[in-house]
């Protein structure tokens, strides 16, 4: 395998491992816990590093996960105490751990390969330098294997607890009565987020972890509201962002992590405008049509009411302007639309309901 391919594969593995817990984070409206956890784990990594003095020890992961859980616990404790609101509580805890981590690094680890830049920004370009040797054979970069293991774990947990996660995400009360503990699932999810964030930190940095956990699932959410489809779409969008981000980075000779994050954003922007269900452009066009349609129905109701009262007083476009407080242009447009739809006929300035129009008006009233 060439180093380039190794980087791309690693990036895709990281991306897939991140989006799976990410889907549940955004559905449960706790997306920013990924930001909090991925910053806070710095402290756990640094403290464990001082104890074991080895940057590749699995104990680093234990320290980091412990800090992640501690962040969640402390945040929850502040929220429960009712002294502060949720947003403030989230924003208070992680800077403390991050600051402790940064201070420890700059005071005691000045000349070791553990600096804040690496944690935050990561450098996946270095991934191929760190080889995984097994029985004397070179099996590829360590990052690929460690993230691969985390991906397998995340996939396994997803398959195992799919039903429970779905229920606890969409209907907490029901989940509790059926016997799953939503609290347990929540902390399980947060543990998974912590493990994934630590695994990814020296490969891609915490910012890309946040980008991958939140952006592809949000993009998928614009395209579908079925959970299973959302997961599959998130994975695909994540992989597409990873590959295109790598291409962009090598073309520009720029940060790979930054480029992948940018690409997740680009994918989101495309969906934001063009998603068939939620896109800004599509809803704009649809709401314009709905407004016309709605106004046309109002006109029909008006005509029917006055038809019943045997007056022809209000059935001209001019009177519509007056009565509904519409502009002349808008009234004409609505009249034209209603004629096109076959709801009314026009005789000079007078408007008359057709049988179809009367039916539509009656349906609108019953609505």
């Amino acid at each position: 395998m060439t180093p380039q391919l190794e980087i791309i594969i690693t990036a895709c593995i990281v991306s897939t491992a991140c989006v799976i817990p990410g889907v549940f984070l955004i559905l449960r409206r706790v997306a920013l816990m990924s930001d909090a956890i991925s910053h806070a784990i710095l402290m756990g990594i640094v403290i464990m590093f001082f104890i074991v003095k080895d940057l590749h020890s699995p104990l680093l992961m234990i320290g980091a996960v412990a800090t992640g859980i501690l962040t969640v616990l402390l945040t929850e404790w502040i929220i429960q105490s009712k002294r502060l609101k949720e947003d403030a509580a989230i924003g208070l805890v992680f800077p403390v751990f991050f600051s402790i981590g940064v201070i420890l690094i700059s005071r005691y680890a000045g000349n070791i390969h553990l600096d804040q830049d690496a944690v935050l920004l990561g450098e996946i370009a270095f991934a191929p330098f760190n080889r995984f040797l097994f029985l004397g054979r070179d099996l590829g970069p360590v990052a690929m294997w460690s993230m691969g293991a985390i991906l397998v774990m995340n996939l396994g947990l997803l398959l195992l607890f799919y039903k429970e996660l779905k229920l606890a995400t969409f209907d907490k009360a029901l989940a509790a009565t059926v016997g799953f503990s939503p609290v347990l699932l929540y902390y399980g999810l947060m543990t998974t987020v912590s493990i994934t964030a630590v695994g990814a930190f020296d490969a891609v940095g915490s910012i890309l972890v946040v980008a991958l956990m939140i952006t592809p699932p949000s993009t998928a959410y614009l395209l579908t509201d079925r959970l299973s489809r959302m997961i599959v779409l998130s994975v695909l969008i994540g992989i597409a962002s990873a590959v295109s981000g790598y291409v962009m980075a090598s073309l520009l000779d720029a940060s790979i992590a930054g480029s992948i994050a940018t690409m997740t954003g680009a994918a989101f922007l495309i969906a934001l405008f063009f998603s068939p269900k939620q896109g800004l452009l599509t809803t704009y066009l649809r709401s314009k049509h709905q407004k016309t349609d709605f106004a046309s129905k109002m006109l029909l109701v008006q005509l029917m009411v006055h038809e019943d009262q045997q007056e022809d007083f209000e059935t001209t476009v001019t009177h519509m302007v007056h009565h509904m407080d519409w502009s002349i242009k808008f009234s004409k447009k609505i009249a034209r639309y209603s004629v096109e739809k076959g709801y009314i006929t026009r005789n000079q300035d007078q408007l008359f309901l057709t049988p179809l129009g009367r039916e539509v008006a009656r349906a609108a009233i019953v609505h």
Partner: protein
Amino acid sequence: MDYTIFMVMIGSSLVGCVSGALGSFAVLRKQSLLGDAISHAALPGIALAFLITMAKSPMIFMAGAMIAGWIGTMLVMAIVRHTVIKEDAALGMILSVFFGFGLVLLTLIQRLPTANKSGLTHYLFGSAATLLLEDVKAMCLMGVVTLAGLFLFWKEFKLFTFDKDYATALGFPVKRIELILTLLTVTAIVMGLQTVGVILMSAMIIAPAAAARQWTDRLWLMVVLSAVFGAVSGLSGALLSGFVAQLPTGPTIVLIMSAIVLISLLFAPNRGMIWEWFQRRQETKLLRQKLMEKHKS
């Protein structure tokens, strides 16, 4: 006194004071984390400002940061208003994607053959020691404008934060009020980026206000206290990091602030947890005494 330490002290206390004051409104509006998104979103603005002008002037950097922070804020609002995506995810996306884009630009700048590109990375983690008189002047100007705005629109901000619908019914243009308040918040955040960095700036917005809220039930007192907490943390953080070797300023300030928050959560009169526990114990004791007396008679 050392010139550098003096600059750092003035700069840090200024940042603490202004972000404390404006942060009160962010916390009360339940928009604390918007600060996190704004500060991260500022990074590409700084980088673009440099790429376009090729000049290293604090005013230009801050202008770039403000524009980018502003665009980020508007995007968060638009996403929340027009799609199913909730605020937390919108904030997280803007935060990480803008920051990632900023990194791309920073790496591009690193590759440029120009000499005066150093200093840009200071904005990532903050580097108070690099504050120059020129920077502090710019920060002073921004601080004065921000605090003056807060003073001028005090009544409107209070009404808007407490009851938006009522403000509208009274005839106040709430959209414009929200715009001004957000602009002032963006200014306060951008002002602190060089000193504490993109990542920790949100703590400067949240922590002093969170602490101040515990001590008082008056808005003006909360804002004043928050500004004081911010300034004191800034000042003492700057001093500590000035005299202890290898102690970065931003994280030190944040830790001091967080200590104040913890003390406030535990010991503040009325709202403090230990205070409450103590109060409850007193009450039980009194009650028990009364019961005993009744029993005797």
